[in-house]
């Protein structure tokens, strides 16, 4: 069963702004699903609708087969959301925050206590127990926010830009935490992010959004293949050798885009294997010294920029 199924979702705010313009996507159970998009692409609106906070204008949404329009109360008991802004009560202690969450989800006290101990240990929060929550750093608050959202053992955990503003170490730790949540608790994770490397390293599926609509959805590997335009990279010993090589290569591959970058050339491929063979043959035949020749796949960043740049549909 799909964890989330969205078809033709439209959201028009009462002030007239249309945030979502017919989004369709599918999230499989147990996967890490990343939503990528520029600011204003509609990521947060989508997450707010999927978490039942906002009502959609039109479209079909089901979460674990339950219709969001009619069964929002049932859906709420199976999801949790770590919003962009931490939603911790600083007047409560760490354990009080976690127990408050368990009370909202009507989890029996003994079960809640056991779960709290597991989560405190799992998220490395033991040493913060004796300090007031208001004194925690942003990173620790974020960890606590995720931990307390896991108190209800949600089937789906929504994370709205969970690593924004974090330093590199904290971000890496957060990635490990997300992987752990998926492996240890079997939770489906739906996250929005700006960081392409985050989406690439964590996700089973990535969806790129633009102007309130999904542009492409697939595995990181599939998305990279989307451009279907590999690049041939020929590396020379120095700039002078690269310039000599440029003349011959540009002449041979006339009509193709050949670019000189310091000591290497890049050639847009039509058929990468054939182009590799021909370029190698030419260089040997013309006796042009080179250091190496390889086929490069486009990065996720290339795909993202291509898909989200203005004028591209």
């Amino acid at each position, binding site marked *: 069963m799909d964890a989330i199924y969205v078809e033709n979702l439209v959201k028009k705010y*009462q002030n007239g702004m249309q945030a979502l313009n017919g989004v369709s996507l599918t999230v499989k159970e147990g996967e890490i699903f990343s939503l990528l998009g520029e600011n204003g692409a509609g990521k947060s609106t989508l997450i707010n609708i999927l978490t039942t906070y906002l009502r959609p204008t039109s479209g079909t949404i089901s979460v674990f087969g339950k219709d969001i329009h009619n069964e929002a109360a049932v859906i709420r008991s199976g999801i*949790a*959301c770590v919003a962009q802004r931490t*939603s911790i009560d600083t*007047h409560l202690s760490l354990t009080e925050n976690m127990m408050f969450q368990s009370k*909202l989800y009507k989890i029996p006290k003994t079960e809640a206590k056991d779960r709290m101990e597991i989560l405190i240990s799992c998220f490395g929060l033991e040493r913060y127990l004796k300090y007031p929550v208001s004194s925690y750093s942003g990173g620790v608050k974020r960890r606590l926010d995720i931990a307390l959202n896991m108190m209800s053992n949600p089937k789906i955990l929504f994370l709205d830009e969970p690593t924004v503003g974090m330093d590199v170490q904290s971000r890496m730790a957060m990635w490990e935490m997300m992987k752990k949540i998926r492996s240890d608790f079997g939770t489906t994770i739906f996250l929005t992010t700006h960081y392409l490397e985050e989406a690439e390293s964590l996700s089973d599926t990535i969806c790129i959004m633009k102007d309130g609509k999904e542009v492409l959805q697939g595995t990181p590997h599939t998305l990279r293949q989307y451009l279907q335009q590999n690049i041939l990279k020929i590396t020379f010993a120095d700039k002078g050798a690269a310039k000599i090589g440029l003349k011959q290569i540009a002449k041979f591959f006339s009509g193709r885009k050949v670019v000189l970058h310091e000591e290497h050339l890049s050639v847009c491929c039509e058929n990468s294997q054939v182009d590799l063979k021909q370029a190698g043959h030419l260089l040997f035949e013309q006796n042009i010294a080179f250091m190496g020749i390889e086929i490069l796949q486009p990065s996720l960043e290339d795909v993202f920029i291509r898909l989200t740049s203005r004028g591209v549909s």
Partner: protein
Amino acid sequence: MSIFPILWRNVKWRYHNAFTIVITILQPMLWLLLYSAVAGQSMKGVGIENYTAFILPGLIVLVCFSACCSGGIMNYLMKADGSFFRVLIAPVQRSSIVIGQILEAVLCTFIEVVIMFVVSLFFSVKIASGFMGLVLIVFLIFMTAFFISGLAYAISLSLPNEVVYETVMSAIILPVFFLSTALFPVDTLTGGLKIAVNLNPFTHVINALRALILDGNIAQSDIIFVIILLAVLCCISFSWALHSLKKEMNL
């Protein structure tokens, strides 16, 4: 019932910010201690023997306003840096959220009213209507606080920030307080002012409380009228608060 976790969370906030109790009781207490002493002398001329006992019901309503308004401020704080959003996406009935919020303000009101009563004992204030009168007083205060806190919560959900909220609440409280029988008997008024005072629902609440404290007896019809009036107002303010909360999710 998810009312109690919400109530517990808010009580913990109040405990953590206990100074809000002091701040909200300060003004009514000054009225009780200073104004009653100053104005008490001249009021003896119009037949009011114990002016402290006379203004206590009005100050109870003022305490209700002060305590319940701070509940609205709490709402802004929870929205800005707290569990407001998390509660809304939890499997909690919206009505439970509103009731939990209201009950905390009611609880705070009672704490402050008890303090006011204890202090007024030193000014020879006694409840003339006995135990049954006390029960009725508690019930009327409960309903008044319930109405005002529902109103404050609804207003806090409708206005953009706490500065605007404070300004609006101040603009409501003072006219309502002065256009009532909190400080003087209605018999001394005439014309449009008398009509305005009689249209103010708090006039009737204050008169009922005053009758229970000073006279010891109250006409059954008067008390039933006040209870029905407050019940209707409670329903209106609760419905408005509930509607405003639901509107938060229907942008």
